[in-house]
């Protein structure tokens, strides 16, 4: 069904023993150089659910610790208008704090991504990450002109579901980064967007694994609605004090308590974006996941199976003369 001819299949040229003319696609282990052989035959596919979720990007304990710490810090940087205790003299602080956050959040994001890829990234993960980020970046401008149609999340949620939380986080961050580079949208808002969409992918990977079939689609659609509103809420909250300045009745008031500010913010977000952008984003997510979800999930799972992320790999000594063992 696919329209890709196997024209520049690198395996056919690289692997010794396979004559160049014969380009029979090796479905089980693409991407293995000649001297790497799977330790065992690929796991028997008795149950289809064996590859319901692959772990494309394994998050070690150290990276997990960094991720949790950085997420807490990031959350505090998003929610700072609600965290400031009521105090008259904090005005000066509130002026400089968000500027510091703009400088620090990129560093935190970089540290997390570096820790997650520490020890090298599997080439298959890297290539999948790049290609899916390209798809996301290409999907994003489709809806940008029309109010509220935000197409960037649906593939992110499905991919996070299939490839696991670590991959979901990395995909969310790289998608927005690539999209910003393609559309020249780099700015102080970019680290915040990257962090928030990374969380969307991370959350999709952390959803309960059990549901399948229609239940799974319903679960993902519900998550899509939640993610749409949560993303809008966080992005609004961070930018709220900048967006309308101080002094109006909907403005951030450093002298009021967190609850009063939350109350004000609720009306601000209702007045600016909740009905238009966030609801549009939620509806787009539900429709896209419901209509395309099953087919896209199947496609992604097929790719995960072909990539064989979970197959243990061992290095064996090369045979004499490079004659393939098989």
């Amino acid at each position, binding site marked *: 069904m696919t329209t890709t001819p196997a024209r520049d299949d690198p395996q056919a040229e690289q692997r010794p023993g396979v004559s160049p003319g014969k380009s029979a696609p090796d479905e089980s282990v693409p991407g293995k150089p000649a001297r790497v052989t799977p330790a065992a035959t690929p796991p028997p596919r008795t149950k289809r659910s064996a590859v319901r979720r692959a772990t494309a990007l394994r998050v070690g304990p150290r990276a997990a610790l960094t991720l949790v710490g950085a997420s807490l810090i990031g959350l505090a940087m998003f929610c700072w208008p609600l965290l400031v205790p009521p105090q008259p003299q904090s005005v000066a602080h509130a002026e400089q704090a968000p500027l510091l956050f703009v400088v620090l959040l990129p560093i935190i994001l970089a540290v997390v991504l570096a820790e997650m890829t520490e020890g090298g990234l599997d080439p298959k993960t890297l290539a*999948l990450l790049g290609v899916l980020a390209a798809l996301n970046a290409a999907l994003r401008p489709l809806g940008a002109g029309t109010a509220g149609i935000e197409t960037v999340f649906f593939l992110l949620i499905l991919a996070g579901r299939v490839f696991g939380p670590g991959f979901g986080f990395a995909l969310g961050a790289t998608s927005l980064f690539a999209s910003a580079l393609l559309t*020249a*949208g780099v700015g102080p808002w970019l680290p915040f967007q990257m962090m928030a969409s990374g969380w969307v992918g991370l959350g999709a990977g952390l959803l309960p694994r059990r549901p399948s079939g229609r239940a799974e689609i319903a679960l993902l659609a519900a998550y899509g609605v939640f993610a749409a509103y949560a993303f809008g809420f966080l992005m609004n909250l961070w930018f709220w004090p900048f967006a*309308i300045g101080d002094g109006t009745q909907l*403005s951030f008031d450093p002298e009021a308590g967190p609850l009063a500010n939350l109350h004000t913010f609720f009306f601000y977000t209702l007045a600016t974006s909740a009905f238009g952008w966030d609801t549009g984003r939620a509806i787009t997510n539900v429709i896209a996941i419901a209509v395309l979800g099953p087919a896209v999930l199947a496609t992604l799972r097929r790719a995960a199976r072909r990539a064989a992320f979970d197959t243990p790999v061992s290095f064996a000594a090369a045979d004499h003369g490079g004659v393939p063992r098989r």
Partner: protein
Amino acid sequence: MNRAQRPGGNSRLPDLLQPPLPRALHPGAWWLWALGLAVAASRTTNPILLALILAVAAYVVVRRRGDAPWALSFKMYLLLGALIVVMRVVFRIIFGGGQGDTILFTLPEIPLPEAAAGIRLFGSVAAEQLLGGLYDGLRLATMVVCVGAANSLADPKRMLKTLPGALYEIGASVVVALTVAPQLIDSVRRVRRARRLRGAQGKGRRALRGIIIPVLEDALNRSLALAAAMASRGYGRTGGVDPRSRLVTGLLVVAGLVGICGGLYGVLDSSAPALLGAPLLLGGGALALAGLLLGGRRVRRTGYRPDHWRPAELVTAGAGIATAALMFLTARVDPGNLYPSLSPLAWPDVSMVPVLAVLVGALPALLTPEPPRSGAPLPVPTAEPRKEPVA
């Protein structure tokens, strides 16, 4: 006499006067320049100065942008800036804010129910109120436009090359994304042609699925083929990582994050000691950054045609930094004109130093080489000066 002397005396002069060969500047230089302008803009709400900064940024962009797709984004940022200003002013009309005695007009007031935090809509609108919104909005808009100037001048692909080594893998996957994205259009076109050849003329849901799924499948196949190609060329071989340097990296990163946590607390709660605030926050950031740089040294990598910092780059970055520094200096010496008075209402004035500071930011438009343009043939700057002695 003067003309006659010139040909004899200019054996070296034409070389200096010739415009340098077109080349793209280091993206970091453009970003430093733009951030300098943005910092300068953040120090003032004087509309004349802000308009001057906008003019300088726009002039440099028009003179020095190439014809790449990202170079066309400047207009979008101007629109975004306009949107910010309009939003601030409109919000002040609807939701009030700020005080003033110069009432321009009075709209019928609409009190909302008690649940809505006692908000009243509309009411009387004062000139001070609107001007306050306008000045504040213009300041933010100018900063956004400065960022937009950097976006349209700096080459994002070259910027990727300057990522620290620890982010090499993520950077590589972003490069893959940037390369694959244009190919997707081709992929969509191929799938649609194949559908038409098969006589499929579905509409709506089925057609969408019939296009998106093959394109996705195509992209995933391509990614696996790419991964195979990379692995067969030895990519992903990290070699032995020194466990001690791993440990140090991890400790630095964790300590940095802990420091940032403490600093956050200090910054947000002003009753905390001052040392707990910004210094701890920045110190934690520096520690984490050190861990990042150290982690990047695990594998030595070479770059293809790296960008160098040459005089033009230094001039560009220096112009931005000088603008910001001069503006800070004025803020200390004569802050009056930087924040024009709203009560009593007064026409904004400007003094000489901030104007000069902003004009320094325009130097890159004159002192840097032209950007290369893809379609145009290389200019032949030698043609004219060589003719002159003959004539």
